[in-house]
């Protein structure tokens, strides 16, 4: 009697898009994510990703290129830090993927800067840093490989709002530079604000795959599946006497909608 972690999940994602993967705890989001770079293999069915074709028969050899192209940032990734210095830790990935020490160092420095760490931390031990800094080092440690597809499991969990926002901006920029970003999150505001495409999981099944606008369309449906609405649409629905052409998902849409209402009323 084995419980299926994922059951009959089937979808296609577009290159260079920003995808949000949502669903409550235990819905299979993290399990799904681990299939993206063949840490887990499907017991039946196939996965085509970054030029790889993964089936239950896929061996554990020759997966390096896949793991370079599909970068995974686990939840609380700071637990992966182990090196003596921040710089060495970030170099770990590139060196594993066959880069020379010099190249790795240049790349590591570049990405440490990209994630917003100042140059004076690079020679420190990662364990001397604050929680937020450790998180940045860990994320730099994956982004340094410059994967085609970057998957992140709640990268903002436990960070203060400003650090979160900065973090999200890094991922958005990364996507804009021509990469695919898959974000596992509980934060519906992030979904509304950044995602082009949303996957909703429940009990190991994919229950919806659509644009954010469509996913947040039906309040009843969201409630039924224990999902929240973005703050902006909650705010909009509590405004009496206002009409919105479209459910406003972001603050900008909300402001525009309110403006229209106010101006229309005059």
């Amino acid at each position, binding site marked *: 009697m084995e419980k299926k972690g994922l059951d009959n999940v089937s979808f296609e994602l577009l290159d260079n898009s920003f995808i949000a993967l949502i669903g409550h705890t235990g819905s299979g989001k993290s399990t799904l994510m681990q299939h993206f770079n063949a840490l887990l293999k499907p017991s039946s069915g196939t996965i085509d990703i970054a030029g790889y074709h993964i089936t239950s028969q896929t061996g554990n050899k020759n997966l390096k290129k896949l793991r370079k192209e599909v970068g*995974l940032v686990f939840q609380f990734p700071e*637990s992966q830090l182990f090196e003596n210095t921040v710089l060495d830790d970030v170099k770990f990935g590139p060196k594993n993927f066959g880069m020379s020490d010099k190249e790795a160092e240049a790349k590591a420095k570049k990405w440490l800067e990209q994630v917003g760490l100042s140059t004076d931390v690079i020679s420190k031990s990662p364990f001397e840093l604050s929680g937020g800094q450790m998180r940045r080092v860990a994320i730099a440690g994956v982004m340094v*490989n410059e994967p085609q597809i970057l998957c992140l499991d709640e990268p903002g969990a436990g960070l203060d709002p400003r650090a979160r926002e900065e973090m999200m901006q890094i991922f958005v920029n990364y996507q804009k530079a021509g990469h695919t970003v898959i974000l596992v999150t509980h934060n519906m505001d992030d979904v509304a604000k950044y995602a082009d495409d949303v996957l909703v999981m429940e009990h190991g099944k994919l229950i919806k795959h659509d644009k954010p606008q469509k996913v947040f369309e039906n309040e009843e449906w969201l409630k039924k599946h224990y999902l929240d609405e973005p703050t902006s649409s909650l705010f909009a629905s509590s405004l009496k006497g206002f009409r919105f052409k479209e459910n406003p998902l972001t603050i900008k849409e909300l402001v525009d909608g309110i403006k229209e209402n106010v101006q229309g009323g005059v």
Partner: protein
Amino acid sequence: MSKIIIGRYIPGDSLVYKMDPRGKLLITILFILTIFLANNPITYAIITLFCFLAIIATGLKARVFWNGVKPLIGLIFFTSLLQLFFMTGGKVFWHWWIFSISSYGIVNAIYIFVRFTLIILISTVMTVTTMPLEIADAMEWLLKPLKVVKVPVDKIALVISIALRFVPTLFDETLKIMNAQRSRGADFNDGGLIKRAKAIAPILIPLFIHSLETAIDLSTAMESRGYRGSEGRTKYRVLNWSKYDLISLAYFVLLVGLLLIFRTH
């Protein structure tokens, strides 16, 4: 996420499960000591019979017990073979260099084999029917007399319980760290010995740090809930003697009696 069950506990509710863990632990230890009372074919047959009755009383499949013996089967055979080839005495059937097979050797090899197997089987009976935490509780009870000589028995028991509690947690964490490092291109199954040994550092260091952090968190949590050492604490899992413990004690006394009657003096 793969959840491992520490120890080999298999849930059930047969006779053996109804015994108190203290009773089980005590009888198991006594049984193992009693095996050494056997010294002739009849006594070995008796104790084997008693052992198999205990196995039947668990109500579990034979496979479970075979799995208990399997990892040690090589060791059992090796020990038996040593007896077989090096024991001298009685009639010698075969002799070459330092090896010889004698009647004593054969008999002793069989005895060792039976003894070894019985010890493993009877310990398996206990470990598959008792949860690790219950075993820890039973051990605490068994060590209680040592309190007289100032051995901190409660603390030792607490340490054992906490260790057992955190085995699955650490296992999950190890898996997560391994996956994170694999995602960064680490390879744990490839390369020579040195390369593999080196590949362990990226797992071990984070794991150590995680364990220390967990330990600090746990101690803070315990202190903030008012833990002040184990003096005078009541138990959450209260152990109760039952009639089944008496039954097994009677069973054991019968075994010892039979062995004493039939063993060669």
